[in-house]
Structures are given as structure tokens and as C-alpha cells.
């Protein structure tokens, strides 16, 4: 079944000439096709790694046996998904800047946690999250970030005795 989504962003894209000369904005293309190709590519990686690990024999399956079978089924299902999704166009909501910033914050937090220590990195991390959730006055932001950070440290670090990284400043 071929359907075109009537979505203002799609119309806008057409007006901008994004959809022209056969070069379509990827965002407005068939989502199942995109995901199907992604998983097909992933299944090829799985198959390659499984062959490297060794499939063994039927009497004694090797370490790559199950992953090879699962990868093979995944590749077939991915192609089936591409087939079933071909021609079905759906508009997709654009990625919110809040989501992008939140994801970046998550990864930066993971990377600096050891270096800066729990208290400093968490303080800035929750501050960013609070700001993304709802814009606040700076003093409210600082106060809430400090409160949440200390609360987390108290519950987990003191009561439950979780060892937190101290960072180069010693705390």
C-alpha cells in the first residue's frame, strides 16, 4: 500500500525543492526501509563476526553458532521489512533540540564522571537537564541542581555506601 503523508513539513520540503530530481530528504522517506537497511547492515556484521568465532559442527556447535543463526534470520527479516515498507511513506517528527542536547549531556556526563568526580559532574549535568525541562531563573537552577546532587550523594553515597568517583579535585 502506498500512502503519502500529508504533513506540513513534507509540503514545506516540497516547496523548498528538497524533494526534486529524485534526491529526497531522507527524513521523509520510508522509515521501515531505513530501519530495514540498518538492521540488514547490522546482521552482516553479526554474520561476519560469527564466522570469525567459528560455527563448529552439528555435533559440537561452536561459539558463533547461535549468533550466526540469529544473524541470518535477522538479515532475512530485515529484507522482508524493506520489502513490506517499500513505498509506504510516513512523516516523522523532526528531532527536538531538547532531545539532542539531552543525549549530548548524557554522553558528556559519562565521559567526565571519572575526571571531574561525581559531585561536580552531576551538578552540571542535572543543571542542564533542569534547564532543558523548563527554563528557570539562574538562582533557582543552581539551588535545585545543588539540592538534587547532594540528595543523590546522601542516599547512594552515604546511606547505601556506593563508591563514587572523586575526580581530580578530590571530591
Amino acid at each position, binding site marked *: 500500500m502506498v500512502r503519502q503523508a500529508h504533513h506540513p513539513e513534507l509540503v514545506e520540503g516540497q516547496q523548498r525543492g528538497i524533494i526534486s530530481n529524485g534526491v529526497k530528504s531522507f527524513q521523509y522517506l520510508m522509515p521501515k526501509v531505513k530501519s530495514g537497511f540498518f538492521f540488514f547492515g547490522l546482521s552482516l556484521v553479526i554474520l561476519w563476526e560469527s564466522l570469525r568465532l567459528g560455527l563448529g559442527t552439528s555435533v559440537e556447535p561452536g*561459539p558463533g553458532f547461535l549468533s550466526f543463526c540469529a*544473524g541470518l534470520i535477522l538479515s532475512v527479516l530485515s529484507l522482508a521489512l524493506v520489502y513490506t515498507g517499500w513505498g509506504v511513506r510516513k512523516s516523522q517528527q523532526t528531532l527536538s533540540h531538547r532531545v539532542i542536547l539531552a543525549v549530548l549531556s*548524557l554522553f558528556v556526563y559519562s565521559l567526565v564522571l571519572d575526571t571531574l568526580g561525581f559531585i561536580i559532574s552531576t551538578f552540571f549535568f*542535572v543543571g542542564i537537564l533542569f534547564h532543558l525541562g*523548563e527554563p528557570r531563573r539562574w538562582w533557582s537552577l543552581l539551588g535545585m541542581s545543588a539540592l538534587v546532587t547532594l540528595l543523590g550523594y546522601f542516599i547512594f553515597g552515604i546511606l547505601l555506601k556506593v563508591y563514587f568517583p572523586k575526580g581530580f579535585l578530590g571530591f
Partner: protein
Amino acid sequence: MGTLVGVLPGLGPAAALSLLLPTIYHVPPISAIIMLFGICYGTAYGGSTTSILVNIPGEVSSVVTCFDGYQMARQGRAGPALGIAAFGSFIAGTFGVVGLMLFAPTLASFALRFGPPEYFSLAVMSLTLVTYIGKGSILQGLMMACLGLVMSTAGRDSFTAQTRFTFGLTSLMSGFELAFVAMGLFGMSEILINLGQSFKRETLDTKVKNLLPNRQDWKDSAKPIARGTLLGFFLGILPGVGVAITTFISYAIEKKFSKHPEKFGTGVIEGVAGPESANNAAYAGTFVPMLSLGIPTNISTSIILGALMILGLQPGPLLISSKPDLFWGVVASMYAGNVMLVVLNLPLIGLWVQILKAPYSILYVLIVMFCQIGAYSVNNSVTDVLLMNIFGVFGYLMKRYEFEGAPLILALVLGPMFENSLRRSLIISDGSPAVFFTRPISAVFLIVALVFLLSPLFTRERIGRKAIDMKEDD
């Protein structure tokens, strides 16, 4: 403490048990073991609290409760959902204790008849349930199941000790930690989804009434509680099945028995009553092989087993006869614990419900922070935090592209048992796959799997088509 652990997303019973292990040196052995047991079944209730209130499973065994429990909360029926979870858990937990007391030796001996072919067939049957559990496309559900199976092979191969899919990371040497995957796929992804939308549609204008289940709720929940209790207890006994799997099976069964299966996922109380009863009964069931055979059935019982050995108690068939005070002390504590769960937690339903009214712009920050800390606390490794966040982004993309996370989680849990039993079966049978069909119990499981796999072609296809058509018309 168990309920608190269950409520806090990111801190599961395994992590809590690990953190509290040092305390067992300072208390009498029986008290220590009772405390550890209490954490296990306490988390079974607490995990449902966050599943219902904020759609984040406190534990893997509470994943299924998110499907309908959270929808009930969004409809202003958080109280009945929490209430039926509490009562169902109490009934199932009490039955489970009685079962543990009466049937431990007999049931444990039956479970000994299961060999690798039976466990493999049981895993196949469980995995085919993904076709029922997934709300969306069956095709995409199976893809997630395959991916979950591949992920379950990460780490060291138990047969050859070869490392697989570790990509040079030390954190992956023991495989993908279930806690990180679940927290990422269900917790962090939900946060990201909500960040992409307005916060105002949530909790602020939710008015909660009737904090306890009404007569109709009880009428709807009676049979699911009974079925979930029996299913959870008897499946929980089987080593390797685990508590989480029983909840998935219970949900699928309730959906199958329901007169309105298409309503599952929209906030039906049966979808909460059955699985919540199953997981509490299953916890009691998991204790049966551990106490009577010395065989752990999941991570929690493995840690408790380790605690028993630290205390100088040898688990196994002789434990009950040589240390009857331990066994009966645990049984008595479980009776008392179940009563306390209801007595303490029912009055606190109002408190949990008030959490719903907290501004989501504050609540989500707390949830994220707890998830980050919870992930870090398992191994004190930032790589684990990074992995959880990666799965969070993956879960977010999965939701955008309409992939369900539940089949992946189920496959990840079942994967080790699936692979070990498959390889052992083929070794035993000299490579002949007929072994799965010539053994009666294995054959029964495979037939049931086939029924589940083929039935969507004749029944669910109509329901699925209606749902898909409705989606495309939006």
C-alpha cells in the same frame, strides 16, 4: 528496604543484594538470609510502583506492568493499579510460600527430569510469545528477538571461554548487563521521548480518584490473579526460567483468554493483575530449587546462594534436614513479609500517587540521575553508564521507528539458557535435532510454540491490521 529498592529505578535486587552482602557478617545467619530474601520479594512489589506511575520498570520483572499499568495511571486509575498489584502480589506471595513449604521436595525432583532439550524447547516457546507481546509488527518483534539473542552471546562463551562481541571492552566481558539494557531501553528512552514532546500533557492535570480497586476491578482480576499465581509458582521452580519470563507468559496468557485482547496495552487491569501475581509467586518458586537442590535460578538467588556459603551453610538437598531452623525461619519470614507488604504499602499508595503530581520537569531529572547512579553502582564503572545511555538512545530510535523493546529484553534473558541447552542437546544427540521431538516434554513445548507462532496468522492478523490502519489514519 526491598520495596524502596524496587521503587528506585536503576537499583535492582541484584545490585542491592551485592551492596548489602557485607552486612551479613554482623548479624546472625538466619537474620541475614531472611533480610536478603525480603529484599527479593519486596522488590517484586516496589518495581511495579515505578512501572505504573512513571512507565519505568523498577525491575526487569516489572517490565510487563508498564504496558497497562502506566496507561491506567494516565487514565487517573493509578490507585486501583497499585492496589491490585499489592493485593495480587500478596495473594500470590502467600500461595507461593505455602507451595514452597508443601511442595519443595516433590517439585524439585520433577524439575530434575528436565534436560537440555526440554530447556531449549521451553526457551523456544517463550520466545515465540514475542509475536503476541509485541503491540506492533510481528516481523519487527521477531527482529528484536533475534537481536536480543545475539546480544545474549556477548561475553565469554561458557563452553570454550572465547570472548564474543566484546569489541575490546572489559565491561562486556560478562556480557550485556540486563539492568543497563532494561534501564536504557525502557527508562532513558522514555525520558527522551517525553523531552521531544510537551511536558504539560502529563501528571499536572491528572486527578486521581478511588485509590483502591472497585468491585468490577476485583471481578476482572480474580482469574488473572489465580492464573498468574499458579503459572508463576510452577514456572519459577524451573531453573533458568526466571521471574521476568513468567510475567511475559502471564501477560500473553491473559491476552489470549481475554474477550477483548485488542484492549491490552491501553490500560486493562488484567494486564497488571496477572503479571504482578506471577512475579511474586515466581520469586517463591525460585527459592524451591535453591533451598532444596542448591541450584540458583537467577542472579538474585545466585547471590543468596553465595551468602549461604559465606555463612558456612552448604546449600543442597541436605540443607533442609540439617538446618531446619533456617528453612522454616525463611518460610515464616515470608509469611510475615507478605503481610507487611500489604499493610505497609497500601497506606502509602497515596504517597506514591502524589509522585504523579510532581512536575515532570523535576521528576524526570531525578529519574535520570537515579538511573545513572544505579548503572554506575553495579560495577563502579563509567563504561556501564555509557552503555546504558547508548541503549537509551537506541531505545529512543526504536520507538521512533516502531520497534518494541520487550522482545529484545526477553531474548536477552533467555539467550544463555537457549544457547547452552541447544549446544548440550546437540552434543548429547550427536548432532541430531530429532532429540527435541522425541522427548515428550520437549515436544509439547515445541507444539505450543508452533501454536503461538501460527495463531497470529489466523486471529491477530485481523486485530493487527485494524490497529495498523488506525495508526496510518492519524
